[in-house]
Each structure stands twice: as structure tokens, then as C-alpha cells.
């Protein structure tokens, strides 16, 4: 918020005329008279206000916290273990009375508990992949955008290459050969594929900002490259990084589910919502085995997308203004 300009001291041609009530405009009174707030507000509080205006994003965030909370505390919340077998209750449809809210599967395992453990895995995969790929994308994009030259060229050729690949096929190949059904290996593979998207965006920000005057000013004050990158340009990338990172969680969860569904991603005994749906494929009459795990994925991804949208509106400094 800029302070109202104070008139220049010195020659002031129009001296105040005879003034019966001593009404002289001063900076603070001027501001108050115009109804402006003088208190300085940080950028983050503006962003937070804008975000809270999106009721859908806020509601989704609340729902997400609940769902992920359930996942984190899976051990305490899930009534049954992931592997508990009960041959007396095979393929039962969901009912509240029997405490099998989502029904049971072909081995009598409680689907509700399995879905909860699946949520935990999805959460772990999503956050891990988003976090690692964001850091990778940020660092690589920053280096490419700031230093340019052959390094930038090389890095951009690599990201272009990744763009032309059939994504699912490549991920399937690496996941099948190196994933070994292990949750963390699969996460690493996903992270190594996803960083390219953010790297492009970050690179764009660095490319445009490094030419701006405030960078020249900083250089004139003797700031080194690292300092310029960190203190001056980097904060401008945090908006896209946060938005992209949030949406990456959703993409990671969806992709891992697809890999696991096809049998090449996370394999039992590690729980996965994708393999739960695959299990449902083998019992098409037991619709609850397909519907509930899939529905969980949809709700999680939907909420993340809403939150991501809200964040994008909140953190994007270029809002549409009404032209006077």
C-alpha cells in the first residue's frame, strides 16, 4: 500500500487563502478522509483473505484435512487390519449394522478399513512426489532461467523430450522394472517424471524477472548471483510453486492409482486405492469393491483441485481490475 504523496516542501505558489476553520489537508487526514487504511499489511494476509473468500476452496480444504487425518491415524481409526480375513463374511454388501460400512471382499476383509489404509498410502505418495518434484523443478528451473546459455538449452531440451513421451507407458515401464511394487520406489519414479512441468514455469519467471530493473539495482549494490536469486527473484516464484505443488499431489495420486490398478505400481501387501479397484474388477457383482475406493480417489482429487484453484486466485497478483 503506497502512502499518499506529500506535497513538496519549498516553493508552493498557491498559499492557503484565508481559512476560517484552519482546515489544512495533511497526509494522514487526507488518507482518513478518503477512507484508506494506513496500517501496513503483508502480502500473505492479502492472499489469505482472498483465499478465504472462495467458500468452495475452504470447504474442500476442511474436507481434505478430515480425509487425510483419517489416513494419518489409520491405525487408530480403521476397525480392522488391512489383511484381516474373515471367511464367514465373504463379499457382503455394505451395511451399517454389520459394521462393514463399505462391505467385504472376496476374502472377507473389511473394505472400509482397506480404503482407510489406502488413503494413507495415497497421502504419502502424493505429498512425497509433490514435494520432491517441486524442489527439483524449482532448482532446475531457477538455474536454467537465471544462468541461461548452454545449461538452459540442455535443460529445456530435456523437458521438451519428456513432454513428447507417452507418459503412462514410460511410467509403467520404469515402475514395472524398478518399482518392485514398492511404494517409495514408485514415488521416486513419479517425482523424477513430474518435475519438468514446474521447471518450465519457474524458468519463465526467472527469465522475465532477471531483466527487471530491481535486479540491476541489486547488482549495483554489489549483490552476488546467489543472493539475487534467493532474495529477489525466488519469492516471486512461490505463488506458482505452491499452486503447482498442490495440483501435483492430485496428479500423483491419480497416476499412482492407475499404475497400481494395472498391476505395475504399488503391489500388495502395501495398500493402494488403485489395487483395491483392481480387486473390484475381479468381482463385478460386488459393486462396492469398485465404487468406494474409486469414489475416495475422486473426492480427494476434486478437493485438491478446488483448493489449488483457490490458491491460484489468492496468490496470483494479476487480478482483473475494473477500468475506470
Amino acid at each position, binding site marked *: 500500500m503506497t502512502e499518499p504523496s506529500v506535497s513538496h516542501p519549498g516553493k508552493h505558489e498557491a498559499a492557503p487563502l484565508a481559512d476560517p476553520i484552519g482546515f489544512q489537508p495533511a497526509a494522514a487526514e487526507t488518507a482518513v478522509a478518503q477512507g484508506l487504511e494506513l496500517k501496513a499489511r503483508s502480502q500473505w494476509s492479502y492472499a489469505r483473505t482472498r483465499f478465504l473468500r472462495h467458500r468452495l476452496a475452504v470447504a474442500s480444504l476442511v474436507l481434505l484435512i478430515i480425509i487425510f487425518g483419517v489416513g494419518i491415524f489409520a491405525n487408530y481409526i480403521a476397525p480392522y487390519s488391512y489383511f484381516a480375513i474373515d471367511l464367514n463374511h465373504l463379499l457382503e454388501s455394505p451395511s451399517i449394522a454389520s459394521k462393514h460400512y463399505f462391505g467385504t471382499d472376496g476374502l472377507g476383509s473389511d473394505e472400509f478399513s482397506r480404503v482407510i489404509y489406502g488413503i494413507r498410502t495415497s497421502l504419502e505418495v502424493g505429498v512425497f512426489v509433490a514435494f520432491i518434484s517441486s524442489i527439483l523443478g524449482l532448482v532446475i528451473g531457477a538455474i536454467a532461467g537465471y544462468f541461461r546459455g548452454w545449461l538452459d538449452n540442455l535443460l529445456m531440451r530435456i523437458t521438451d523430450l519428456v513432454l513428447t513421451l507417452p507418459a*503412462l507407458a514410460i511410467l509403467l*515401464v520404469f515402475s514395472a522394472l524398478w518399482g518392485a511394487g514398492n511404494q517409495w520406489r514408485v514415488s521416486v519414479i513419479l517425482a523424477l517424471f513430474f518435475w519438468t512441468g514446474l521447471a518450465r514455469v519457474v524458468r519463465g519467471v526467472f527469465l522475465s524477472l532477471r531483466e527487471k530493473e530491481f535486479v540491476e539495482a541489486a547488482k549495483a549494490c554489489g549483490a552476488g548471483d546467489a543472493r539475487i536469486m534467493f532474495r529477489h527473484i525466488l519469492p516471486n516464484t512461490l505463488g506458482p510453486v505452491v499452486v503447482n505443488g498442490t495440483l501435483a499431489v492430485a496428479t500423483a495420486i491419480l497416476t499412482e492409482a492407475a499404475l497400481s490398478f494395472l498391476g505395475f505400481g504399488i503391489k500388495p501387501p502395501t495398500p493402494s486405492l488403485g489395487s483395491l479397484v483392481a480387486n473390484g474388477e475381479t468381482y463385478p457383482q460386488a459393486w462396492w469393491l469398485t465404487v468406494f475406493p474409486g469414489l475416495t480417489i*475422486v473426492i480427494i482429487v476434486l478437493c485438491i483441485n478446488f483448493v489449488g484453484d483457490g490458491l491460484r486466485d489468492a496468490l496470483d497478483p494479476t487480478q482483473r481490475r475494473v477500468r475506470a
Partner: protein
Amino acid sequence: MLVYITRRILYSIPVLIATTFITFWAVVKAGNPIYQLEINPRVDRHTIHLLIVKDHLNRSVPVQYWYWIKNVFTHHFGYYLIGDQPIWPDITRTLGHTLQVVGLSLVIAFVLGVAIGIYSAVRQYSVFDYFFTTFSFLGFAMPTFWLALLLQIAFTDIYLHWGTRIFYTSGLNNAGQGGAWTLDRLQHIALPVVTLTIISLAVYSRYMRASMLDVLNTDYVRTARAKGLTERRVIMGHVFRNALIPMATVLALDIGAIFGGAIITESIFQIDGIGQWFLRELSVPDVYGVMAYLLITATMIIVFNLLADIAYGFLDPRIRLD
């Protein structure tokens, strides 16, 4: 124009080489063909020796890659690692089926997506707009495999309850029926096409709507109105043409996802397409089969991108393709 195309094609070659080499290296290292052969009960020691010599399995990776590339061109992708079957017939058979499904979905999704995008933007905040906005958000969040399964379950249920088959839930044709464009075939590929169309439609309609809204707010649209044009002329003559330009990029970026979707739908609906073939090769794993699939799809994606860029050049006179 011709110069541009040639240049792009020439540029794509090192990209393809790099891509295939890296994946070949990864597949060979992790797939370990020699090990696969040794643990396979159907292959005896003598055959293993022959194969090692024939396919140069004990040489370094670049050498193996070189022989593989030679095979691709001289022997139509060569032979499977295990067994003596040539790869090419499987490719020709399956690729056509996949392209039929994917092609249909793309065309339908694009036409519908553009239309819905236009109408949503022009009638912003209407019931139509809210409905399709919701639809798009759901489409973004829905896993392809889940949608496919739900459709499969639904239509299986319809058959079980009412005895009629509207759409088939598996296979390409009923026994004895052939032909690519028969009613029987269309009934069989309807569900995979619907699945892929819905997923793509969510994306295309959303982007077209956003593009339309961007253009609707430009100064030149205001100028068009100030000239006295009817709203219809403004939309169709000025807004639509400009809004369509970014869609070329959207299509190009989506093609990779469509092939991924094809893998999933072919698996669920038992369509004899190249995606399902790929999954089978991957589960062996057969090095040459997997690599053939990757090379073919990567090439198709590059060609598709090139077509999109050419379309871009036609749509936007500011872009000079040279």
C-alpha cells in the same frame, strides 16, 4: 512450409534416438533379458545360447541398441525375445484397432468440447455453464480406469436385468463378425470410446471456455461491437477464430494422455489394441516388444505435435513457420 516440416522432422530424429536409447538402456538393465531367459522353464539351455548370440545379449548396451535399431528398419521391428514370432504382424493388427477407438474419441471430444466451450463462455453463469463446469471438474478428478469400470458394470447390469445388450462390455467383435465399421464393432467399441471421450471432453471444453472468455474481454472484440456488428457475428467472426488458436496446443499436449487412456480402456474392455499388447509384453517382460511400442507411440506423438504446429501456423498469421 516444406522447409519447416523437413527441419522439424530432422530435429525429431535425435529426440527419438535419445528417448529410445535411454529407455532401451533402462529396460535392458532392469529387464535383464538373459536372466529372463534363464528362469523361463520353456526355454532350454541350447536356445538360450542361440538367442544370446542372435540378439547380442552379452554385448554392451549401445551395441545391443544398434542391432535393435537395425532390426527396426530392416526387419520391421524384429522378433520377440522369447519365441520365434515376428513382432510386426501383431503391431499392424492391434494398432488399427487402437487408432479406431482413439481417433473416434478425439474427433467427438474435440467437436463437442469446442461447442460446449463456446456456449459456456457466451452464456456464462447460466445453468448450462454451471452444469458443464461441474462436469469438467468431475472429469479432471475421475480416474479413467474407474469410469471405464463403472460403465462396464452398468452395462453388464443392464444385460443381466433386462436381457438386452446395448453396448458390449468386452472384446472387439462377437464371434464370427468382422469388419471395422459394422454395427457389431461399433457396439463393442462404444464404451471405450465413451470413456475416453468423457475424459478428454472435460479438458477441451474447459480450455475452450477459458480461451473464449479471454478473447471476449479483448479490445478488438470491443472494437467489433463498436462497429455495430451483431453479437452473433462478433462471436463467430472474431471471437471463435482467435479462441481456437490455443486449442491446437491443448490437443497436442493431450495426445500422450490419450494413448495412456487407451492402455487402460483396452485392458478393461478387452480390446485387442496396441495398449493391451504393450501390457502383455511388459509383464513378460519382453525387451523388444516393449521397445517397439515405445518407439511407435513416441513417433506418433511427435508427428501429432508437428501437425498441431502446422495448424497453428494456419490459424495465426502472426506465426511465421520458417
